[in-house]
């Protein structure tokens, strides 16, 4: 073995950056050599003196002061982000078990708007009134589905990227809550004549079901399988693209 340097002794002190053989070699050398023990003791003494220094502690008002300075910045940030009413509704609808209720509301609202607008529009232009009602209902549905897809995207991203059991547990719950709402949105899209969206949502259903039923401690294989599936089907890209399309405001009439 090469002569043991002070650098080796520093790494030995932290038990870091050395393999097991090197650690064992240094331990044996320390047992055998007084001079090496003295050098090591000197390093340990220096580091112990650093430990003896009091840790810097914030004063009592630190948290209050921190929050006072932080809060306006967060609010500005929130305003800049300008969350849509759909996002606010989604936040209100959390925890995820209420997502189903959201979907049901969206469906009822879309049907309701169509019905109301159809009944109360100017009688002399029934075609225009009906078209306006359909457009309003479609916009409501689009906003809800876009939000649903954002949540789905998050679930897919977490499932394919995260190894944290805790996050995966929450993710499983979220996926389970999205299955029913996904079914309702697919139904609503089909009723509204948007077969493309309905087909796409139906395509998502088995993926959500499979994520909702993943074992509590997933092994590497299912996670890798999901990554492979996402890559081969471009599903994540399709989710984002559909989400972006639904988010796009309808062209203004001039």
């Amino acid at each position, binding site marked *: 073995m090469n002569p043991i340097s002070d650098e080796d002794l520093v790494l030995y002190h932290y038990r870091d950056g050395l393999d097991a053989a090197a650690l064992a070699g240094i331990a044996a050398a320390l047992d055998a050599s007084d001079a090496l023990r003295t050098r090591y003791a000197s390093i340990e003494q220096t580091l112990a003196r650093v430990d003896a220094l009091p840790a810097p502690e914030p004063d009592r008002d630190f948290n209050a002061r921190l929050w006072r300075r932080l809060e306006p910045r967060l609010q500005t940030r929130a305003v800049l982000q300008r969350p849509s009413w759909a996002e606010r509704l989604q*936040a209100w609808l959390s925890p995820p078990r209420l997502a189903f209720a959201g979907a049901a509301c969206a469906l009822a609202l879309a049907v309701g708007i169509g019905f109301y607008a159809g009944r109360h529009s100017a009688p002399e232009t029934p075609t225009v009134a009906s078209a306006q009602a359909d457009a309003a209902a479609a916009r409501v549905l689009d906003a809800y589905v876009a939000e649903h897809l954002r949540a789905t995207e998050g679930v897919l991203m977490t499932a394919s990227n995260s190894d944290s059991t805790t996050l995966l547990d929450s993710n499983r719950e979220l996926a389970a809550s999205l299955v029913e709402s996904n079914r309702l949105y697919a139904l609503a899209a089909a009723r509204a004549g948007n077969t493309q969206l309905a087909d796409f949502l139906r395509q998502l259903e088995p993926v959500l079901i499979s994520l909702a039923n993943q074992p509590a401690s997933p092994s590497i294989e299912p996670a890798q399988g999901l990554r492979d599936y996402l890559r081969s089907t471009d599903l994540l890209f399709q989710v984002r693209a559909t989400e972006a399309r639904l988010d796009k405001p309808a062209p203004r009439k001039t």
Partner: protein
Amino acid sequence: MRMANDEARWVARAGAGDAAAFRHLVDAHSAALFRVCARITGDKALAEDAVQEAFFNAYRHLREFDGRSAFSTWLHRIAVNAALGEMRKRNRIEAALPEDDEAADVLASSLEGPPGPERQAVSAAVGRDIETQLKRMSAIERTAFVLRHHEGQSIEEISETLSLSESASKQAIFRAVRKLRGALEPDGVEA
């Protein structure tokens, strides 16, 4: 596990825009972040700015937190970069204090000081000199040392946080320890 689970829920709620949940995370982690930032910057006011910046950056990127590491690890990494950023802003990075022979003399005599109240005063002097020595280190040396010694991070983690190779991280820690030893053992090790 329950704690981690609870924290994941707070993080999820904060990510959805719940300010109260974010405040909860701030309260839970601010003291630890302050300690690491104060050790890196060597300045409480700078540390406070760094903590504020760290939380603001964390809030902006909360949705990107993927749970691969613990939330506190993720937050600490942001705080370390915020502390380095604050130092850079104030042109303190890589700045060294002027050589001070007087300080070295006080230190040398302190190591042979008598016990009792005088010894306590000497201990305080040693503490001050360690702090002086820490301030003389480059920002990278001090940060690598603080992360390894006080935060218990591995060299691999330090390399990731500071975007350095493992070899460069080790060298930064070695230089930091050498400088400390140079101050505490003036005859033994060259700083």
